[in-house]
């Protein structure tokens, strides 16, 4: 029971972190960049793990996060300097980095139990409790993954609260921001660093591939029904948590992959909100057409 609660708490933090950043990725039409970064951190994770031998070291956190930032630098270079089409630049960058990561796993980490392809695909959320934090010899205060997520949550929350106006302006009208003399490149890379950090800390929990579902789907759901940015962020977090809780219950009940169930539920919530929203809009229209 205690294990379940820790899993739910950790996964909810993953969902909140990803959903908050996902709102900005989505509004900036950069959903695919989030996808790319989450794949591209893989070689960074493998290399850092190889040298530190520890899944939760600071070296791994920084090294892998930097790999994600390098990926977004590479995408920007390909589109802006080499004039390659945006989606092609993204495709080239992340498949390349992801492939390198896979090769590294199959050679350097052959037979390793901590990081294998399963873990890359959907994380090991059921196993996070193996890496416990115990203080005073016997007091168990939760899994390591929970605290890494909490750390990421504070980084993201603080940055987004302090820089709310800047990120909002960047998302709505980047040219206008640049016209005011605001260094939009700097803001852009702060956001990319946070996205990268999120995918790195979430890697072990939900995997590099499925974290994209946490980044994009709740934010997209929230956008359907939000008229304000802060409301969109709030709702995205709520939808993310809902997917985590319902998905976990379903996974236990049906005995299926936990992360897979969470992302599926997230998708189903999106569809439901979409249909309900369309239905209500139609009703409003017909009401205003024949008020009687």
């Amino acid at each position, binding site marked *: 029971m205690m294990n379940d609660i820790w899993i739910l708490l950790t996964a909810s933090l993953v969902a909140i972190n990803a959903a908050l950043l996902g709102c900005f990725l989505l509004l900036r039409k950069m959903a695919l960049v989030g996808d790319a970064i989450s794949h591209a951190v893989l070689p960074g994770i493998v290399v850092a793990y190889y040298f530190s031998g520890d899944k939760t070291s600071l070296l791994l956190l920084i090294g892998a996060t930097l790999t994600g930032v390098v990926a977004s630098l590479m995408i920007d270079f390909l589109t802006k300097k080499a004039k390659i089409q945006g989606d092609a630049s993204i495709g080239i960058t992340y498949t390349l980095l992801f492939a390198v990561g896979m090769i590294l796993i199959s050679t350097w980490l052959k037979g390793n139990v901590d990081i294998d392809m399963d873990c890359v695909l959907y994380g090991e959320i059921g196993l996070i409790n193996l890496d416990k934090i115990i203080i005073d010899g016997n007091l168990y205060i939760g899994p390591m993954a929970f605290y890494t997520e909490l750390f990421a949550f504070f980084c993201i929350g603080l940055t987004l609260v302090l820089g709310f106006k800047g990120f*909002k*302006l960047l998302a709505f009208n980047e040219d206008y921001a*640049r*016209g*005011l003399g605001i260094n939009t490149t700097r803001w852009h890379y702060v956001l990319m660093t946070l996205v990268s950090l999120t995918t790195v800390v979430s890697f072990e929990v939900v995997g590099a591939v499925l974290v994209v579902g946490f980044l994009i789907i709740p934010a997209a759901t929230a956008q359907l029904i939000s008229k304000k940015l802060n409301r969109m962020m709030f709702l995205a977090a709520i939808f993310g948590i809902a997917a985590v809780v319902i998905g976990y219950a379903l996974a236990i009940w049906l005995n299926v992959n936990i992360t897979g169930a969470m992302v599926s539920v997230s998708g189903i919530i999106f569809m439901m909100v979409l249909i309900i929203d369309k239905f209500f809009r139609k009703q409003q229209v017909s009401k205003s057409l024949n008020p009687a």
Partner: protein
Amino acid sequence: MENCSIEVHNLTTTYGGAPVLWDVDFELPVGQIIGVIGPNGSGKTTLLKTIMGLLEPSSGFVKIFNQDLDKIRERVAYVPQRESVDWDFPASVYDIVMMGRYRKHNLFRRTNKTDIDIVNQSIEKVGLTEFKNRQIAQLSGGQQQRVFIARALAQRAELYLMDEPFVGVDAATESSILSLLQEMKNDGKTVLIIHHDLQTVSDYFDYLVLLNTRLIAKGTPQEVLTKENLTNAYGGQLTLLAKVASLIKENEFPIREKDMDF
């Protein structure tokens, strides 16, 4: 020019390929409503973006009020083309106009009472007070255009650069924007506007820049709107030539201009 709002000196801008602006050189007066005209793809938007420092020129330079742009950015308000942003963004009219109060150095601060007052006044000026809290996605194209103008007003700038503010705007809105521009001019502001409708240029603008990659002509509407200049800029297309002919008539017989409007 003694009082010079924008000085563009031997400006060439490219997007990697052939130049989109080629050796453009002009100085613009202060306190006037200035029109930039030219056919589609003639580099008007590019010119505005280069003046705003959004594009790096491959040669030449821009000075605003005889200074480098970076020194006086906050005195310049940019109104981008309406289609350049996604209006499905989750924000109200008020939120967007408030962005006119954003500055490089106040991004981390909360908005104060003065900002709120200025934003409300700006919304009032463009006649959107009743839509203040409406999400921008639920506005008509003309209302969205006015949101952009209100945001520029909220910036309290001295030079306004507007990219096609009259596109998709009905006659009533067009004339209310026009009187707003007139008011701004009376306050000593300089307004530079990209415009498409050749029929109205001589009524709207004090000064004109005619562009087609190169600078074709600049000066008062009378000086610029000659058959030769317009043919140089627009080529010899049939429909255009007809328009050109009527424009020239209007210029030659200014008294009859009014009759011909109706």
